[in-house]
């Protein structure tokens, strides 16, 4: 598809060939769009359409049963005076700020361990990757809740070592650690990506460094980290965005209530409760758009600051 323009430029003198080539171009493009059509239709109907509709609804009062009533920016101004909203922001930000770096650190550490050839590395890679496939599911959330419950294995195990925390699920101070553990446990997906990145670092760099007398720490900070920085950036960005969207596990573990004393009232959960329990769809839509804007801003900040620490090979730096 992309080689035709060069060909047509070279054979400019032979008109019939050029005509056939551009006809091919047109036919190729049409075929492309035709294959794209199902996805495109779905995207417009199921994603873009609802997004636009939700933007409209965020300026209204809509209780699902009666037609929406326009109220302008009221929803947005009420948001910032709503204590539970502010709490949900705090909970979600705490989760992102503590959960994501820990998860990436675990992913990188394990990826580095699995980078060297060892027996059963295929097995280990699959074993570590598996949790990230099923981690966001309902069944895992139910299991996690049971594990950290009053009589669950975690509580029992800890008390064996003399740490008497009781159940984590009902304790407002321990529910966030429980969620952070859940996300860190799913480090398999970023780990696999890190592994791929690690494999692309030329071995000669490490050999050269060894010859210069560099220890493992030096090698990590001066070779691994810079060479891996595009991958780190990618994972950091994706995991951060992903962390903001946590819903299923929050809903299941807190029984749809936002947990003991609001300690698990994640942003999306509060949004859901406002929309479907309180019938305040306009308010929920406003929350949703606010989240989009905020995540967009954070992404922008990531990209802007990336220039100072992400090192793409082939750059002049």
């Amino acid at each position, binding site marked *: 598809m992309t080689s035709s323009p060069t060909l047509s430029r070279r054979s400019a003198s032979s008109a019939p060939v050029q005509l056939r080539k551009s006809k091919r171009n047109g036919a190729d493009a049409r075929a492309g769009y035709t294959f794209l059509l199902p996805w495109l239709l779905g995207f417009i109907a199921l994603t873009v359409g609802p997004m636009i509709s939700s933007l409209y609804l965020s300026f209204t*009062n809509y*209780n*699902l*049963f*009666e037609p929406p009533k326009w109220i302008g920016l009221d929803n947005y101004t009420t948001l910032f005076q709503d*204590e539970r909203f502010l709490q949900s922001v705090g909970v979600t930000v705490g989760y992102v700020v503590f959960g994501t770096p820990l998860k990436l650190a675990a992913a990188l550490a394990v990826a580095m361990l699995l980078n060297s050839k060892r027996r059963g590395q295929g097995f280990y890679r699959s074993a570590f990757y598996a949790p990230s496939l099923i981690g966001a599911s309902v069944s895992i959330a139910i299991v996690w809740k049971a594990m950290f*419950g*009053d009589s669950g294995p975690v509580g029992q195990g800890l008390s064996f070592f003399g740490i008497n925390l*009781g*159940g984590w*699920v*009902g*304790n*407002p101070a321990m529910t966030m650690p429980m969620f952070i553990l859940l996300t860190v446990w799913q480090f398999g997906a970023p780990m696999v990506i890190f592994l791929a990145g690690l494999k692309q670092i030329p071995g000669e760099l490490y050999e050269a460094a060894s010859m210069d007398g560099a220890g493992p720490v030096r090698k990590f900070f001066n070779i691994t980290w810079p060479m891996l920085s595009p991958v780190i950036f990618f994972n950091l960005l994706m995991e951060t965005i992903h962390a903001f969207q946590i819903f299923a596990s929050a809903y299941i573990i807190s*029984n*749809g*209530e936002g*947990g*003991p*004393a*609001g300690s698990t009232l994640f942003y999306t959960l509060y949004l*859901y409760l406002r929309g*479907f*329990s*309180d*019938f*305040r769809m306009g308010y929920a839509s406003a929350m949703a758009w606010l989240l989009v804007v905020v995540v967009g801003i954070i992404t922008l900040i990531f990209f802007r600051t990336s220039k100072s620490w992400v090192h793409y090979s082939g750059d002049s730096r």
Partner: protein
Amino acid sequence: MINRRHFLTTVAIGTASAAALSACGSGAGSSGQTGSADKPVTINYTWWGNDDRAERTRKAIALFESKNPDIKVNGNFTDFAGYWQKRATEAAGGGLPDVMQWDLSYLRDYGQRNQLLDLSTVKIDTSAFDKSLLPSGQIKGKTYGIPTSTNAFAVYYDPAKLAPLGIAEPDGTWTYKEFNDFLTQVGTKSNGALYGGTDYTGVWWMFNIWLRQNKIEAFTSDGKLGFSKDDLKKWWNLTANLRGTGAIIPEDRVTQLAPKSPFGSNATATEVTWDNFMAGYLGDSGAKELKLVPVPSDDPDNLGLFLKPSMLMVASAKTKFKDAAARFIDFMVNDPEVGQIFKTSRGVPASKTQRDGTTFEGTDKLVVDYEKSIEKYLKDAPEPPIVGFGTLESSFKRIASDLNYGKLTVDGATDAWFKEAEDLIKQNG
């Protein structure tokens, strides 16, 4: 000229459209509202409850299907909290189940917004109902729900737990102070192994009863609050000295045990709730017997009690099978065999036909006897609560839970709830 690419494209499009169009066709038997024995119509029925109720409901459905071979009932259930979120999403999508078990708290929300069928337009026999009970399912002259049964508030206790502690069984004539003392006794005498009960001030309907005992109505007839912040503060301060002691189970244990209740999990000696929870508690706790006594009151002549429709049967306004839905509802509220299946697990049957056809034994008899014993104290049932009441009830529970976690003071909790209530009432406009 036909080339291979064109041919393949046409075949692909043809197959795809054929598949799509065939999916548009509906299943058998839905061409009309009625079916027959070999082409039965299928209606959807949903309810909330625990496994015990699910078991009984399935028996009732099987019985209905055997008596009505032209109707199939597709049943499923959830717990109470999740039930309403599901209904909200279904209503938004225009797909509410044909028949549903309903709660008074949400009757106005859905009825007034034309989501429920006016049952006076279909054939349901209500002649065996107490005339004073039927208005509780009616709004502006339209019947949106038929009560299945009644219930009244009570204090449950497990005699087998009190005996080893040497605590005498209560007789139900107690003031709030005496009730509090009773709860404290349980905690102290059991050395923390058993709690007196949950924080009863977190239960909306108990608050409602206390208001009535003090001659205050919760809501005025035009949908505004009938009580003040001071009233609520007084109420929540009733158990201020019990929180954090062995009298009341700590809130984090309550969260752990959810969705099972502390009483059903044998963690407390008492529970303050509706009398139809008896069957569920027996099933969950495995206790041999549980007993009921009236709620505390500082005025022995005014217990503030009333018979509330414990639940209602409603139908979706958009159901395609009005006749089948009506027959199912009629069956569930009137048939004596259904009464035998459920006994008092939904409450005391509202229809006399169903009540008379049921033999109440053992603990079921206790529930029926309980309602008979408080008959002289019973006042009129309140009318369907205001729109959005379901939300207020759940925020009451949530804020009281925060109170018990020590996250809020009584003043803070009162302000928080009032803010939500006033906001909601303003929304209702």
